């Protein structure tokens, strides 16, 4: 159709030149890239650990400690230990932790993970911080056959991609949280009535929590006054609050974003609803979130944690204890510690341990070594072959994937914590109930709000 259009000779020659140039450039780039990529030296220069992390975007709070932690461990291993001894090469080889920013975007996380695998040739991958990051990254590792350590994620969500061949998780199990809270309520005996006010965010987390609470409450004879699933950003909770107040519920529980819980709790206070226990999932994880509630209102609120400086564990690499790690982070950053610190360190321990035992950078050998992991980390023991405890078996039985793929995960047991006025920071958490981990000290006695 363009035959009719006259084209000037000058335009044609320029067009030729451009097309020629494009062809030559593509050919040159392709040839040099493939030459570079096929050129692999005999003994590796580094043991490469890939770490795509959400350093910007909505999940950035989780990855705050990542670059610092990677630098600490890399310096320690390379400078103090002289690298990791690999028997296949008969010498010590330094590690290199390659961090890339995923901008909290699951799709970019997949792109970045693939880049780390295909361009940087990483030997092992780390995938942390919520299912939106762990799932796409471990999917790429499965696709390309790269050993992957998954952590700081919700196991039921991650196990949707099971069976896994290359990925192993150190995660949190959803069914634990509801039971932990109700065990805590039960331990109060007659001091609180058995009426529970409940409110959950209208999202998968909120929905999941609501389902588990309903089952446990019914089994243990509690009455639920359920506000149902509430969308994000609601401005007025008064109708729910009046309802809870008039029914005299002593306990308030639920799973919400911290901003929404802050609004809710302020309104409870204004309207004079004073439950004796407030135990919230999700909203009370980070000290900055707790502080955002404002005033004296955070005092005595209950949440859970999976790691704290009180946990009696130490690093298998540096020998640091949990509290020493917290001190180092606070000294470096001037910021209060958060529970992500522990697992952020533990994944590096597990990765280095697996490579060391494999004695090789052969991916299958690393994967096999990873499967045999039996290591005491700063976040507790990691042993994928260890069986579930009888209590865990009872809790997880309704969830087919948790039962079926036991060999690919370990659960980090949560403990209940209470927020109190701190000495160093405005609000600090105290362990009030160690639940199924008797080795973790209870640092304070729980108090009721009224």
């Amino acid at each position, binding site marked *: *159709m*363009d*035959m009719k*259009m006259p*084209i*000037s*000779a000058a*335009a*044609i020659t*320029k*067009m*030729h030149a451009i*097309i*020629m140039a*494009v*062809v030559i450039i*593509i*050919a040159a*780039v*392709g*040839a040099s*890239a*493939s030459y570079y*990529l*096929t050129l692999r030296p005999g003994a590796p220069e580094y043991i490469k650990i890939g770490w795509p992390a959400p*350093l*910007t975007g909505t999940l*950035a709070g989780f990855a705050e400690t990542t*670059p610092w932690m990677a630098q600490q461990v890399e310096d320690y291993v390379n400078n103090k230990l002289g690298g990791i001894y690999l028997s296949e090469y008969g010498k010590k080889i330094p590690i290199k932790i390659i*961090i*890339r*920013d995923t*901008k909290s*975007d*699951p*799709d*970019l996380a*997949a*792109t970045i993970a*693939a*880049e780390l*695998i*295909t*361009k940087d040739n990483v030997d092992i991958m780390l995938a942390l911080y919520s*299912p*939106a990051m762990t*799932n*796409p990254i471990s*999917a*790429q590792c*499965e*696709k390309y056959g790269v050993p992957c350590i998954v952590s700081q994620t919700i196991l*039921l*969500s991650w196990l*949707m*991609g099971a069976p896994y061949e290359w990925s192993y998780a150190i995660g949190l199990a959803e069914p634990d949280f509801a039971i932990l809270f109700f065990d805590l309520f039960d331990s109060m005996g007659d001091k609180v009535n058995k009426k529970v006010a409940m409110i959950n965010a*209208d*999202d*998968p*987390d909120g929905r999941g929590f609501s389902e588990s609470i309903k089952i446990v409450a019914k089994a243990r004879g509690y009455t639920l006054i359920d506000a149902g699933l509430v969308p994000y950003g609601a401005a007025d909770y008064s109708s729910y609050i009046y309802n809870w107040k008039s029914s005299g519920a002593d306990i308030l529980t639920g799973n919400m974003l911290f901003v929404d819980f802050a609004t809710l709790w302020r309104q409870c206070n204004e309207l004079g609803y004073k439950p004796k226990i407030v135990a919230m999932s999700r909203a009370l994880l980070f000290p900055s979130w707790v502080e955002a509630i404002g005033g004296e209102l955070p005092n005595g609120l209950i949440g859970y944690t999976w790691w704290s400086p009180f946990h009696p564990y130490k690093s298998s690499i540096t020998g640091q204890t949990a509290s020493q790690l917290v001190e180092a982070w606070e000294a470096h950053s001037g910021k209060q510690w958060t529970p992500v610190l522990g697992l952020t360190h533990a994944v590096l321990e597990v990765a280095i341990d697996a490579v060391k035992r494999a004695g090789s950078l052969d991916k299958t050998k690393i994967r096999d070594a990873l499967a045999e992991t039996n290591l005491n980390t700063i976040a507790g023991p990691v042993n994928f072959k260890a069986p579930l405890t009888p209590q865990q078996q009872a809790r997880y039985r309704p969830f087919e994937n948790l039962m079926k793929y036991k060999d690919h995960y370990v659960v980090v047991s949560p403990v209940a914590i209470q927020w109190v006025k701190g000495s160093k920071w405005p609000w600090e958490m105290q362990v009030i109930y160690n639940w199924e981990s008797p080795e973790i000290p209870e640092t304070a006695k729980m108090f009721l709000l009224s």
Partner: protein
Amino acid sequence: MELKSRYIYIVILLAVLTSLPLWVGGFLRDALILFFLYLAAAEVWGFMAKHAGIVSLGQQIFIGVGGYTTAVLSMYFGIPMYASVIISGLLGAGLAGLLSFPLLRLRGVYFAIGTFLAAEVIRLAFSGWEFVGAGKGLIFRDAYGIPTTIIYYPALALAVISIFLVYLLYHSKLGFGLRSIGADEDVACGLGVNTFVCKATCFILASLITTLVGAVNVIHHTYLHPTSAFSISWTVNFLFVAVIGGVGTIVGPIIGSALFVAFGYLFAQYLGLSLLLEGLIVLAILIALPQGVWSAISRKLKLNLKPPL
């Protein structure tokens, strides 16, 4: 004669591109797949926006629908993957047809807002739909076994088809109608152009390409999450590719897509600064070259290309 030699170069270029996966490394294959996918979607987005005056902020609907349909059909219904991709394309086109009725009654910025809201509604629906994994997302296990050497070809094909589609559309009777709508919709209507049919056809064709991009993307990335599959960032990225290169041109998005993919890999290394750097560079390009990189180059070289090149 002159025209013939031009086609020879295009044939050579295509031959090089087709044989590329056989001799380049894995990373370059990955990057090229992304390049082709963004190119394909940005070509049609740019055409719609510039020539037909249809500025859609809801193309993520089709990325998501393409991805979910392909994954669900092949995982849960055992339909072969290539067939799932084709069905998802048809479904996306059908959905675009349905959405045309309410949305194309709106013009300009109202249409843009309407498409964005439609995408949000669909995102919320998928976030609560247990069958497709709801907010947990969906892992497309069946696609693990498909190497990038194979995924490369549908991606390349989509880019080529998209370029030809834009070229043909521009010179067709339909394209003539669309350009008159883009210039002034009321005058076009007065001149007897059936504006609704023209715009709907264009929207459906563009959405078909975008759906297929979503389908190929899920085979490549093997993971779907409602907030990212239906995220406005898809459309913003297409807009970025089109605008940086030169919106409404065919060559522009080729440059834009190459820059976009390169930026993506490059800036991920600057920890914590990637979004900032990307924003600054885009701002700089837009201030220095408001018509896009390609328009500036072609003006500088006095290429006198006829649109839509």
